[in-house]
């Protein structure tokens, strides 16, 4: 489960915003069984992303980043009505800056939370499973090589 731990640190180090989304970090049962890991207590491991800046990450930088994100959010919140009431070019520039920064940081956080999880918890186990399949099939028939497709719901082996 080293992958899960790493993901947890990754998400928390980014100062995980409050998502009361229980993102189940699933290690599909068939993959665990196949890879002969220690048996998971259930199929889903939920990971709550925490609100406060994480002190366990140990670095001042991530805490500062988290605070910076909040500051930019509050700034943007205040800028929108202010820009409506006092339109000016200075307001335009600051609105553009705050909007860009806020969207960049949040999109980055979203991608790290979902794409990283997908890669570590689905793609990597699938690839590992594929490798194992190839290993298992090798002694079966030394004269043929197998092309292995591992899809989430179907495992296909085709002799080439």
């Amino acid at each position, binding site marked *: 489960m080293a992958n899960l731990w790493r993901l947890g640190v990754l998400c928390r180090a980014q100062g995980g*915003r*409050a*998502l*009361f*989304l*229980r*993102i*189940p970090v*699933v290690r*599909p*049962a*068939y*993959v665990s069984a*196949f890879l002969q890991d220690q048996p998971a207590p259930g*199929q*889903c491991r939920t990971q709550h992303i925490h*609100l*406060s800046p994480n002190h366990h990450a140990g670095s001042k930088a991530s805490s500062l980043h988290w605070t910076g994100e*909040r500051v930019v*959010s*509050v700034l943007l*919140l205040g800028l*929108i009505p202010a820009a409506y009431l006092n339109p000016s070019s200075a307001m335009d520039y600051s609105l553009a800056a705050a*909007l860009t920064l806020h*969207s960049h940081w*949040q*999109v980055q956080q*979203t991608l790290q939370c979902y794409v990283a999880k997908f890669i570590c918890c*689905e793609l990597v186990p699938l690839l590992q499973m594929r490798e194992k*399949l190839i290993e298992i*099939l090798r002694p*079966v028939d030394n004269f043929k090589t*197998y092309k292995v497709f591992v*899809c*989430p*719901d*179907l*495992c*296909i*082996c*085709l002799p080439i």
Partner: protein
Amino acid sequence: MAALLLRQVGRHCLRAHLSPQLCIRNWSLPMAMSICHRGTGMALSAGVSLFGLSALLVPGNFESHLELVKSLCLGPSLIYTAKFALVFPLMYHTWNGIRHLMWDLGKGLKIPQLYQSGVAVLVLTVLSSVGLAAM
């Protein structure tokens, strides 16, 4: 032979990677609202980026585009609907964002408060969207 065996293994895990996420028995309001917050955030981000890109690439300035839309003589209800559709995600994201910031301050984290603030955000969203679209 090996293919058949593996097919059996595969069948057990039909959509296993997605079904826990999507088929969780009880979808809760905070969970759905959190997903919508992220969804609206991504949509707004894409919209703003496209707006900026179009300002760079498409000839003409904002006033000329506005004149173009006015010259189409669309019905007022259609214009109102379009304005409502544009402002609704923005308002939702704004109010829910304030809710997130409240959580970051440590306030309103109990479960009943979660539901109350969630409902409040939804009501405020609808009211503010209706108001802003009418402007």
